[in-house]
């Protein structure tokens, strides 16, 4: 830095930003490029066997939607500097609550759905409370609650119905709301759109969104600026847990059964989608658009591999490699963003 601070730029239009510079300033530029490259790759390799067809497109969109309803709030929580690994058990618990309540006991679905969502709120509060009281990393706290809840749902389900898998034949009006399809597209895609709009609005357009960034970026500074950081985390923990419960309810109704052990895949998939989408693991940085692209990438790879005709055993390998590349790219892009505007000496 040789420049002095007083150096004034001429009044009027300020320093010109080049196109490249401006593109690098877009938070989600990395995941956008990755999504396009991966999509084009699978179009070339799997297009002929139907990746581009309507069932193919619906396939990856449905996958992205169910994952995304959880991954988007997980991404916000990660931006605020916390993790939630209890999402998997919340999905399973919610599904089994609805299946047991409505399928086994014949309770009205509105009631069992509400019970599932209240369970989500309770888990969110429990996680937030434990994190703020024990000051343990949320990684450990929520990992523990994931196990506690998984065991509890499995145990209770077997105790009550004799099985971990309970069928739910007719959920009445809820079938249309959570289980309907249009062509091959599940209604979950619409719910995902709603979840995206809410999250994007909150993160970009509200003071609460600013607090999320600040809490993850510098928690002491946020607290001193008057940000209620404990409340920010509480709301986000509740948000992730309720969203997971929602997915549990939806899947129980869509697939006509609930399984206490289902949903564990979401635990890591949601964090992976957020990171691929450019959310910084240490918190303080990320965007809803990026996370959405991360879920698209996840969906495209999962379904795309199927259309290539290659053995799908390799899916996890592919996702793992993608994760490493994503993290490295994101770090690189962020460094560029931070250097943008710094004077070269």
């Amino acid at each position, binding site marked *: 830095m040789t420049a002095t*601070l007083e150096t004034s730029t001429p009044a009027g239009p300020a320093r010109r930003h080049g196109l490249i510079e401006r593109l690098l300033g877009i938070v989600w530029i990395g995941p956008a490029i990755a999504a396009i490259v991966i999509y084009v790759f699978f179009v070339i390799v799997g297009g002929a066997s139907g990746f581009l067809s309507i069932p193919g497109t619906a396939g990856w969109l449905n996958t992205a939607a169910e994952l995304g309803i959880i991954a988007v709030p997980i991404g916000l929580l990660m931006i605020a500097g916390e993790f939630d690994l209890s999402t998997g058990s919340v999905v399973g618990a919610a599904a089994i609550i609805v299946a047991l309540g409505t399928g086994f006991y014949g309770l009205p679905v509105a009631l069992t759905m509400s019970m599932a969502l209240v369970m989500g709120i309770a888990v969110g509060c429990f996680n937030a409370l434990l994190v703020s009281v024990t000051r343990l990393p949320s990684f450990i706290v929520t990992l523990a609650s994931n196990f506690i809840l998984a065991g509890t749902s499995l145990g209770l389900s077997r105790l009550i119905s004799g099985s971990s898998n309970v069928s739910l034949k007719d959920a009445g009006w809820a079938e249309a709301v959570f289980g309907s399809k249009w062509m091959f597209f599940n209604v979950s895609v619409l719910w995902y759109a709603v979840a995206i709009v809410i999250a994007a609005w909150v993160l*970009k357009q*509200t003071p609460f969104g600013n607090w999320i960034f600040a809490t993850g*970026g510098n928690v002491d500074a946020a607290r*001193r*600026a008057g940000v209620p950081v404990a409340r920010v985390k509480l709301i986000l923990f509740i948000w992730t847990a309720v969203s997971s419960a929602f997915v549990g309810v939806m899947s129980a109704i869509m697939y006509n059964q609930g399984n206490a052990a289902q949903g564990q895949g979401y635990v890591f998939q949601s964090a992976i989608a957020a990171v691929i989408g450019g959310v910084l693991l240490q918190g303080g940085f990320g965007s809803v658009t990026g996370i959405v692209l991360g879920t698209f990438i996840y969906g495209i790879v999962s379904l795309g591999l199927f259309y290539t005709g290659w053995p799908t055993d390799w899916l996890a390998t592919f996702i793992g490699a993608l994760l490493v590349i994503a993290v490295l790219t994101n770090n690189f892009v962020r460094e560029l*963003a931070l250097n943008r*505007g*710094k004077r070269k000496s």
Partner: protein
Amino acid sequence: MSALMTLQSVSRSFGNNLALDDVSLEAYPGEVHCLLGDNGAGKSTLIKIMSGVTPPSSGTLTFDGRPVAFRSPRDAKAYGIGTVHQDVGSIPLISVARNFFLGNEPTKGWGPFRRLDHATANRIALEQIREMGIRRINDAGQLVGTMSGGERQALAIARALYFGARLLILDEPTAALGVKESKIVIDLMIKARSQGIALVFITHNATHALQVGDRFTVLIQGRIASQFKRGEKTREEVLNLMAGGEEFDAAGHGD
């Protein structure tokens, strides 16, 4: 003129560790009160008490002639106490405007459509930091992480003053800065002082202290080693005191 803020016999202990022991000091409007002392002397603890971050174990605080007990930093801020902490409190990966208004975000609209007023936030943030002489910043959407240390100090000072600080506390604002950047911060302090702001300036640097200080308090291991006004001590004496020497140790071996 009466003091804006007074600390009377303030002590603070952390377990067995007495970080502050019976400290009294006064901050006057239009004056810079320099707080000097070695690492671990208790300077940061003292200003955390003044800014509502931690309560004192004993002793009283008076602001504007009335006794006060801050429950939170927000509480202290409401009285007009602005603090720029050692780490500046900036958040590197969010924009200048978002940092500037953190915790006081301007909004427009109503009900569920109440939203950040980005245009107003950007305009005011830019105006305010340019007012501070930071002309290089011309985009309020720029990330704070792209600013230099001095520019971040200026942003934090601009922010405190904009939100009505009457007492401005600066914790080692020049510690990490080069000569030119330090000068910017010192000039900002002089400007604030001329507007009638009371300043508390924590520093290790005797040169910076003597440049702007009107009053001086030297802390050694949580106790006041010396308290004096501008012109009452030579540079050598000040350096000696800061190095932990006795007040009347007149041997002039400074650096």
